[in-house]
């Protein structure tokens, strides 16, 4: 018997390539897309970021000149700062607010479906619409500020979009309004996946609810949190349309973001080299986010 199985295994071994053949054929287009479009174009972009391409891509290399200029440009530095502030705040607030909403909905309240729809609804709107809506809400002359002033509190001032120091938080508010609903839904799904028995056990042990959430439930939801984290992070790096719709980078340069720099340099300034250098730096930023994620997701398993 043993010999036979060994033999048959030996016979199958050379055909490893043809194992799951259908599945492999089916994935060829996806692999090609990934290699040609993602990897190929990324490499092409990186190579051209070392050239002095203007409107048309040209292979006249100038070394790190584009990067030198990029990192000595005020606008790019402001953009990176803004992305950091927006990114950190957005990450924290989306997760905290999303989780609190999810936990509240999970307490088996009445009209859960209605609330869920209301919270998720902003996600159905595009960033452009979100941006315009919040541009109007935050407009001092006919938005929130004038509404409060009409009620009698005439010294009330809330005008983030025209104040360079806090404009990025005005954008953050709109971003949170749009994105928290989805994270809430994902976390709610995670909460529903927790076994009822765990709740029963903690109740018998007399552990307060908030402690149960903090020390039992949240650690159990690690995979769900990682998914949520990646979704939020991807949304942060590519933030563009929200800014364009709300402030178009103003006042001054106060709400510029990297993606907008890339677009403006490539198409408005007709300076592809500079745009490519900036987009390469954005790729680096994505890798900085991606590497800890990959480590969390796959690195840990090796020790198991």
């Amino acid at each position, binding site marked *: 018997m043993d010999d036979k199985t060994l033999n048959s295994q030996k016979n199958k071994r050379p055909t490893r390539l043809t194992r799951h053949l259908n599945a492999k054929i089916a994935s060829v287009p996806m692999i090609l897309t990934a290699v040609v479009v993602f990897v190929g174009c990324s490499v092409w972009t990186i190579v051209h970021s070392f050239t002095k391409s*203007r*409107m*048309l891509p040209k292979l006249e290399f100038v070394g790190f000149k584009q990067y030198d200029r990029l990192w000595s*440009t*005020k*606008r790019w530095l402001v953009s990176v700062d803004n992305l950091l502030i927006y990114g950190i705040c957005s990450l924290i607030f989306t997760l905290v607010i999303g989780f609190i909403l999810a936990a509240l909905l999970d307490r088996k309240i009445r009209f859960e479906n209605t609330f869920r729809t209301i919270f998720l609804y902003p996600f159905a709107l595009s960033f452009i619409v979100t941006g315009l809506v919040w541009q109007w809400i935050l407009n*001092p*002359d006919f938005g929130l500020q004038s509404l409060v002033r009409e009620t009698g509190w005439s010294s009330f001032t809330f005008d983030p979009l*025209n104040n*360079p120091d806090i404009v990025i938080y005005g954008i953050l508010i709109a971003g949170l309004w749009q994105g928290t609903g989805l994270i809430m839904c994902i976390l709610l799904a995670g909460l529903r996946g927790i076994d009822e028995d765990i709740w029963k056990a903690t109740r018998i042990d007399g552990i307060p609810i908030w402690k149960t959430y903090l020390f039992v439930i949240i650690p159990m939801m690690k995979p769900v949190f990682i998914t949520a984290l990646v979704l939020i992070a991807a949304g942060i790096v590519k933030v563009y349309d929200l800014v364009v719709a709300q*402030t*178009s*980078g*103003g*006042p*001054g*340069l*106060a709400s510029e973001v990297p993606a907008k720099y890339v677009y*403006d*340099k490539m*198409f*408005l*300034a*007709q*300076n592809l080299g*500079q745009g490519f250098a900036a987009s390469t730096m954005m790729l680096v930023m994505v890798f900085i986010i991606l590497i800890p994620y990959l480590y969390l997701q796959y690195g840990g398993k090796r020790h198991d």
Partner: protein
Amino acid sequence: MKITKNTLATLRNTCLGLSFAALTGSAQAVDLEVTHWWTSGGEAAAVAEFAKALNENTEHNWIDGAIAGSGGTARPIMISRILGGDPMAATQFNHGRQTEELIDAGLMLDLTDVAEAEGWKDVVNPTSLLDSCTYDGKIYCVPVNIHSWQWIWLSHQAYKDAGVDVPSNWDEFVAAAPALQKAGKVPLALGGQSWQSSGAFGVLAIAIAGMDAWSAVNVDKSAETAAGPEYKKVFEAAVAARELAKGSNVQDWNQATNLVITGKAGGQIMGDWAQGEFQVAGQVAGEDYTCLPGLGVNEVISTGGDAFYFPKLKDPAMESAQKELAALMMSKEVQVNFNLKKGSLPVRGDVNLEAANDCMKKGLEILAGGNILPDVNQVFSSDTADQINDLMVEFWASDDVSAEDAQNRYAEIIADAD
């Protein structure tokens, strides 16, 4: 299944019909798709004059390819269509250096023979317009109008409310500003978009530093002059103007113009296209508003504007139609009709604009006197212009940038300019 079959049959019939039409149709008449970014009321009416002229005078058809948004939105679309092998028959650009690389790559049609046959060299005034269309001795575009930046528009209403006279130059404007502020008005309306800040600075530079210093910096790219005492005065004046512009809180230029029209703001530094807004609002030059070329200090105008370029097409029938359109755009009648609607100055010195209003007449006088400058698009590459825009929008919006700091950075950009 049935639906699919029917659809297929319809498709086949349509294809047959189309090829039939192509076979029998005359080889001469073609459709010319023309792309441009003129979408506001007055602009669309002006473009319609071109379309009318083409449809009536030739057998070709004008296919309107208006792209909404400003030139900043439209130009990338146009350029990627030309680069991507889907060129239109003709397209608007600001003449100058925006198309240099497209011409260099051999993607644009050479119009030299049309220009010679029609004698453009003798009629185009100022000749710098045709020079901007010329690359390596060949002519690649048709200039259609002249727009100038060097104007300030003043609201009579605002000054009446504040109880002071309407200023007649920049110094009086600055002196009258406190009275306006007391009356709860913004002295200087300025929109938040970067090209507006940078345009306003350019106008201040010509008025305050004078023609020589301006040319040294903008034409000869002298970083020394940009860092020098004449430009120091400009930056100091700009800091003062920055104070006057506080409280505008608008983005688009026409919203800022509207502040002037409604008397909420004293004035606006803006190009002559602002005139269209006053006209639409039913205001009369000299009665409801005043325009001062060169801020009333140095009466000069820059001669930028719009031009049409013709991408190279394979079909010879299309090429001859393109050349017909090019000749038509420069013809006397079309120039008059188009520019009256557009509110811009004609590119020919030999046409009569009796219907022009006060401000346009001022512009024509300066043009006839030869007090003209090249436009930003003609002296700077898009890259340099964009860097200046970035600096200016930051400078005008934030008190943190001092005049000295801004001047140093400006001089650096000029030193690297190409």
